[in-house]
């Protein structure tokens, strides 16, 4: 029902605001994004409301699925009918658009407002800056580095809540004996590779990961520790259920919420599902950042502003970019989204225990972890993820073969 209303809202949002007074300085903006679930819709409407309060019109083009939304954006840019703003991830996804000169530089507003001084962490500036100019607006930070655990399950079998994957593996057989699925994992490539990323960073640590994914250092990949990661990952996979292939992430989270499964590795957007189910952080469920060194991964979303033949559009785009980084708007947006803001001077008093953990951690620059797609193209990360997914699904795919294939991707120059 909620979904139905959000669809209705999406349909009528453009209609219902067309009769807003066409005062001087009235601006109209079309925004393509993929935030369609209940919580996500609530978050994007914070932007829409702030924009409308400025007396402007917000045309909402919500497209299900990031791949589809990005595809639509690119097609429309090439087709000569670009949207005012479009969502991408914090990654190299839009670098081609910048290189081909298809995006509007935001440098004017960025230097006037001093974005470089307040955007935190500074790695976000690197993502958006090309040849000294801003081309995107980071809006939030999402981290993959979480284990979501049902506390009741562990109470029931008489084990303490695990803090690392080793501890989880040690307790898993006992959970299985109790008739509960130890590891809830949805068998889709992005979920499988996401969990693999968390396993590898918690075992290897960020400096090691950086050598592999940024420096493409084959010796680091080959030093034996990565094989440990693969073995751990395979051990973990022995504790999933046979309903796993193709299962959606939120259905998988529901298994942990209902106590059918003990643990899921998922990004911090999973917290929304627990909240909707009325569960309380650290009481009903635990959120654990696994590993000895704890990290916040720098995932999240940005908005880019495609160049338009109409010179008036540029002013609209700069105004919207400025609105998105506004601390008040940032606070409302991120509280609705459950993500971390992209600046520190934002009111986060509504944060729950899990979000607070992330907020505390991100203030420590050493705890900030970047992911493979910060340095690599989608072609590279997808080729890598394919191998990981195949490794999970094919028991005959040996660790030695996987290492060879991963090295192949690393040296492919993709």
């Amino acid at each position, binding site marked *: 029902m909620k979904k139905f209303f959000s669809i209705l809202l999406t349909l009528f949002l453009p209609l219902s605001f067309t009769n807003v007074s066409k005062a001087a300085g009235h601006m109209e903006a079309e925004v393509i994004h993929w935030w369609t679930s209940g919580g996500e819709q609530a978050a994007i409407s914070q932007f829409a409301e702030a924009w409308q309060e400025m007396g402007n019109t917000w045309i909402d083009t919500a497209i299900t699925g990031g791949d589809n939304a990005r595809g639509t954006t690119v097609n429309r840019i090439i087709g000569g009918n670009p949207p005012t703003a479009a969502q991408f991830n914090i990654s190299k996804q839009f670098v081609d658009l910048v290189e*081909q000169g298809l995006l509007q530089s935001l440098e004017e507003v960025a230097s006037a407002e001093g974005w470089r001084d307040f955007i935190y962490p500074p790695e976000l500036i690197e993502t958006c800056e090309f040849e000294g100019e801003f081309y995107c607006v980071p809006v939030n930070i999402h981290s993959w580095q979480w284990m979501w655990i049902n506390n009741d399950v562990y109470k029931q079998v008489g084990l303490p809540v695990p803090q690392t994957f080793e501890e989880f593996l040690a307790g898993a057989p006992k959970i299985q004996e109790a008739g509960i699925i130890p590891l809830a994992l949805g068998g889709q490539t992005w979920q499988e590779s996401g969990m693999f990323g968390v396993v590898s960073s918690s075992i290897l640590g960020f400096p090691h990961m950086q050598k592999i994914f940024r420096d493409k250092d084959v010796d680091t990949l080959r030093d034996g520790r990565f094989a440990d990661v693969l073995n751990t990952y395979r051990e973990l996979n022995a504790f999933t259920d046979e309903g796993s*292939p193709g299962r959606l992430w939120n259905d998988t989270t529901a298994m942990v919420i209902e106590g059918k499964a003990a643990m899921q590795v998922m990004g911090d957007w999973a917290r929304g599902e627990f909240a909707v189910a009325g569960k309380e952080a650290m009481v009903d469920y635990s959120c654990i950042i696994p590993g000895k060194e704890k990290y916040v991964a720098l995932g999240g979303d940005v908005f880019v502003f495609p160049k338009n033949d109409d010179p008036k559009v540029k002013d609209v785009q700069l105004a919207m970019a400025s609105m998105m980084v506004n601390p008040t708007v940032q606070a409302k947006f991120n509280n609705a989204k459950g993500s971390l803001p992209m600046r520190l001077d934002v009111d986060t008093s509504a944060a729950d225990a899990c979000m607070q953990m992330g907020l505390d951690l991100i203030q420590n620059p050493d705890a900030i972890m970047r992911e493979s797609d910060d340095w690599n193209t989608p072609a590279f990360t997808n080729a890598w993820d394919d191998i990981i997914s195949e490794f999970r699904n094919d028991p005959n795919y040996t660790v030695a073969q996987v290492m060879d294939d991963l090295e192949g991707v690393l040296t492919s120059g993709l």
Partner: protein
Amino acid sequence: MSKFRNIASIIALLPMIIISLTVFIGCIIYSFIYSLTNSKLIPVTNFVGFDQYERLFKQRKWDVAVENIFIYGFVFTIGCLIIGFLLAVLIDQKIRGESLFRTIFLYPYAMSFVVTGLVWKWVLNPTFGLENSMHMWGFSWFQLDWLVNRDLAIYAVCIAAVWQGAGFVMVLMLAGLRGIDEDIWKSLSIEGVAKWKSYLFVILPMLRPMVVTAIVLIAAGVVKVYDLILALTSGGPGYATTTPAMYVMENFFQRANLGQAFAASIIMFISVVCILAPWAFYEFYIRNKYAAN
């Protein structure tokens, strides 16, 4: 007069000829040119030779996709022909309620592959499908995990496809069977030939045009299979049920890897030509030549 008619027909065909040349031939040439570049998110003319093809043939995923299309093509074609023919023969026995059965068997064909895929996805899902129902009825030994078993998943896809396509073959064959002269049946029964023998050795060869039509129509569906697999398995588990068409679409729209997608589609095109060319040569050239003689 005949010359004028020729010109008139050419003028009438001109729009089609132009569309064919620009859209089909033009797009093939365009795809080929850009398959030689390292285009990522948008097409760029940064030529890298045959690197994309080299990369393509190194992909485990591509090997799996090609293997799958052969398995699917073989099982789907043969399955549809055998089951379709058997259904046609059974319906041909002057049964009661023939039109009802004909409708039931043809009905799946009226459905979109996406619907077929979703229906079978729920039937074959081990946690809430048929397996679960059987367990609840007390048959705890029952196991049906094809969809989540990476070696069998492609056959699960074939089952769904045959379920959809067999009815269509049945209708074609039934039309052929109805066209068989009564006198042939009479002479066969005078000779005392067993029924199954008459179907297999006399009637089936007479249905050759129907069989060829069915094969051509089915084969055209094999190469472009995409929506069924997307709905049924999304190419999983892992990428065990991926196909060349899915590989192309994935690289086009999700992976921002245009060069690779173009290379894969060119290889798909070449393989279709390789399979069709000898057949077309036979059908349109050799047979005509003999017919003329």
